[in-house]
């Protein structure tokens, strides 16, 4: 079977700490792949490696058959790799709409001079992207907040905006780092519903999460990490029954 995404013995060391150790996995298209583990397991570091924000010490990644080694983060994004962050990284001083529009920059196909002086092609692009942006906002439930300054949104809505903005790049694979962090039960439910719908539309997902409900409901496969290493990988049901996983989580009971 042709996998959309593949990671091969990824490793990263920081000073004395081996943050990620020989992690390998494969993800099929349209799968939802969850990464779980206690705090400090190296999950976010792993995403940073996949995303290209930091360079791996060893190992490689393939996306749609393309070897990502050495590619900068923005090039990976242009190939269709989207990312949201654990710590919210919105453009706080820009409006909600402008945040999403920023995600459309990769799609501009206009001659260079129109970057400075707005010509016809630029205006067409703008109109199209504006419409699409509003659709995305509607999808995440922020349709009526378009002109609000992003920094003033309540926390849950900021998380949704991050999602909308990442979707603007039209990714083939989206990596979400704790998308449910800080959300209340209703918001989590809506998030699960939206992520399912995205999968139906053809999106592949990697989700790092602490929220077990979300993981068990959504994920096809789960990778459990602990101290940077692969502890276990399997279906959600397998993971729940596995004694090593349970042991690692004792004392780290996630709600």
């Amino acid at each position, binding site marked *: 079977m042709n996998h959309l995404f593949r990671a091969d013995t990824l490793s990263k060391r*920081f*000073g004395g700490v081996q*943050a990620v150790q020989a992690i390998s996995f494969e993800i099929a298209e349209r799968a939802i792949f969850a990464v779980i583990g206690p705090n400090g397991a190296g999950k*976010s*570091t792993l995403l*940073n490696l996949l995303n290209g*924000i*930091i360079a791996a010490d060893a190992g490689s990644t393939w996306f749609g058959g393309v070897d990502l080694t050495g590619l900068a983060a923005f090039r990976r994004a242009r190939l269709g790799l989207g990312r949201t*962050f*654990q*710590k919210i990284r919105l453009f706080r001083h820009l409006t909600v709409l402008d945040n999403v529009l920023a995600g459309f920059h990769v799609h501009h196909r206009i001659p260079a001079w129109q970057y400075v002086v707005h010509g016809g092609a630029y205006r067409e692009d703008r109109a199209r992207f504006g419409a699409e942006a509003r659709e995305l906002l509607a999808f995440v439930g922020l349709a009526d907040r378009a002109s609000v300054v992003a920094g003033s949104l309540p926390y849950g809505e900021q998380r949704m905006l991050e999602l909308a903005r990442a979707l603007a790049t039209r990714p083939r694979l989206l990596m979400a780092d704790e998308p449910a962090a800080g959300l209340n039960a209703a918001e989590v439910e809506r998030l699960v519903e939206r992520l399912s719908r995205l999968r139906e539309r053809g999106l592949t997902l990697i989700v790092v999460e602490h929220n077990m409900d979300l993981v068990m409901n959504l994920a096809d496969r789960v990778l459990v990490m602990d101290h940077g290493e692969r502890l276990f990988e399997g279906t959600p049901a397998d993971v729940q029954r596995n004694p090593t996983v349970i042991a690692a989580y004792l004392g780290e009971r996630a709600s």
Partner: protein
Amino acid sequence: MPDALTVVVQQTINGVVLGSLYVLVALGLTLIYGVLVQINFAHADIVTVGAFAAYFFTHRFGGHYVLSIGVALAVGAVLGWLINSLVFVPLRRRGSELLPLIATIGVSILMENASLAAFGPIPYAFESPYSGQVIRLGRIFISLQHLLVIAVAGVTIGLLYAFIRYTVHGKALRAVAQDVETAGLMGINPNRLIMLTFVIGSALAGLSGALLGPVLVLTPFAGASVIVKAFAIVIIGGFGNMEGTILAGLLVGLIEAFTTQLMNPGLIDIVVFALLLATLALRPTGLIAERREENV
């Protein structure tokens, strides 16, 4: 004509002396960065004011030179307390990364021009009673001032080390440097600790001023001549990394001593900064990336 060995040994000694001075200045910077993740641009000006304080204590009040070191230390501590209280504490709430740095640039300009108005642009001749007394070991010359510098630097660094490694405060300092939030959860008051660090770092700056006074051209801009070298040392050694800073400082001192001997002294700055830029190019985040992963 001194033989090569004599030159090497002599310049090594000079380099260690010079390096010790730089280390003292840079240590203050790196300590502060370690807990605050902020650079105090006015650090150099604290060095300058410390030098002037020591000057006036010895040349106008007739105090003993060794005591003036303590005076400069105290002056530095006070300035550090002021700058932290008036600049960093209020700005910390705003959560901007660059604003505090810019604010310290403002304080630096202010201090320089205030000093200019108070002391004038003409260099002051700061003479230490020990500068003239030279010990001769064969063909090597060491002035008592040099020995004093090495002694003071050694003792200071040793005390600092012991403080950080073995006292409760010191350990708390390292905890805060690692992770401010967790340290807070463990009952350490980060604000008090930051203030303590700032005061210690600035005291170091003042102290180095007293030692540098006899060596540098003492004008209100004396600190500026040292500051960028201090930055270079901190970066080469790694922000927040004490051992690295010490090594880098000695390295820079040695480079400077040997360069002065061999080439045009004006090229020293170019060599040091080329080294700085090279470090930045090769290891852009210095050693700090190895110690603390950026929280993304």
